[in-house]
């Protein structure tokens, strides 16, 4: 089972810190954010760490699935 992180409504850079911390102990992760800046930061971080990241819009939110290549 994947861990799901609900990071909606949290100020920058808390979504990034929570995602980074979760990825230190998991190979895959689903993150939910509702802010464009948080979405971009998390995707950028995942890319820099050589993770695969897929983002889909779900209503007003973004669901980002991150997993190791």
């Amino acid at each position, binding site marked *: *089972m*994947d*861990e*799901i*992180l*609900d*990071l*909606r*409504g*949290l*100020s*920058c*850079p*808390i979504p*990034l*810190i*929570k995602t*980074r911390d*979760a990825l230190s102990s998991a190979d895959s992760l*689903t993150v939910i954010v*509702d802010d*464009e*800046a948080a979405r*971009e*930061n998390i995707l*950028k*971080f995942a890319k*820099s760490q050589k993770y695969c990241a897929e983002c889909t819009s779900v209503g*007003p939110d973004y669901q980002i699935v991150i997993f190791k290549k």
Partner: protein
Amino acid sequence: MNFGLILLTGIVFGLGAVLLVKFGNPGNYGFCAACQLRDIAGALGIHQIGTLQYARPEILGWILGAFGIARFKGEFVTRGGSNPLIRFVLGMVMMLGALAFLGCPLRAILRLSAGDLNGLTALAGFASGIGAGIYFLKNGYNLGRAKAYQGVSTGIGYLTVLAAFVLLVLVSVNAAALNFSVKGPGSMHAPIIISLILGLASGVLAQRARMCLSGGVRDFMLVRDTYLLKIYGVLFLAALLSNLYFGFFKLGFADQPLAHTMHVWNFLGLFLVGIAATLAGGCPLRQLIMAAEGDTDALACVIGMLAGAGIAHGMNAAGAPAGLALNGQIAVGIGIVLTAGIGLFFREKIVTASKGV
């Protein structure tokens, strides 16, 4: 990574700031999220210093430009509710810190690009403050979740842009409702149309680039992300070359425009801005942009900055070319203690993780 956006944002902010000085703004005063907001506070009568009163169209342009592009891109969302009162306090202390140094972090870069080495001291303080803020973030600091507003209450998200529009109309017609300085820095300004155009352009770009002075240093410290730092590099170079071209460059600490050489207080002033901006989720510029995007928590922070300008000038706690008076030193000290207390004690419990299938 969008290199075009990095280049364009850096050039418009760097070259634009120097052009504004060329067209009439005071020295190294093309853009400043703190000082220019302080001038707006003066125009509104929030402080009574007659030489610092002008509703700067640069700031109004930032707000209107960021709002326009956010609406166009579908990124305007009315949201809020993440402890606005504490964000008001953080905005207030950010302004106290910035006015101790005489500039926000953006102006620190612009001052440095014109040879004012006090900018270096201040930026060292700013980076240290961000480091302190990150310490609190790593130890669980947060102000709770914001929520998107629904229905009629979404109208509150338009308050910032409405206020900016009304101010722009009033300043354009020299309305008696606003104060206008007749001498001093407040009386020095580029023609409104030039200030507005450069404000609009930089507001659009700041929104698209997610420009945040504290965010650049913070993201580098956290995850070695250099995206925003690259913008500041281009901005610095563009401003440096423009200052050299127009003959504004003068290397040294002493006798710089709208600056003082009390190094400890230049350092601590932006230290306070760094720590408060990290806890508030963005620097003074970013707060203005987020407020324009409908973020009412950022608006609370901006209103706190306006109040901070009133306190700083009402209590003789703002810096001046002669230095920072004792009141200002006490204000910065109290601000640092207060902000550290917020970082230490505000750790709202939030459940973020669940197991999926």
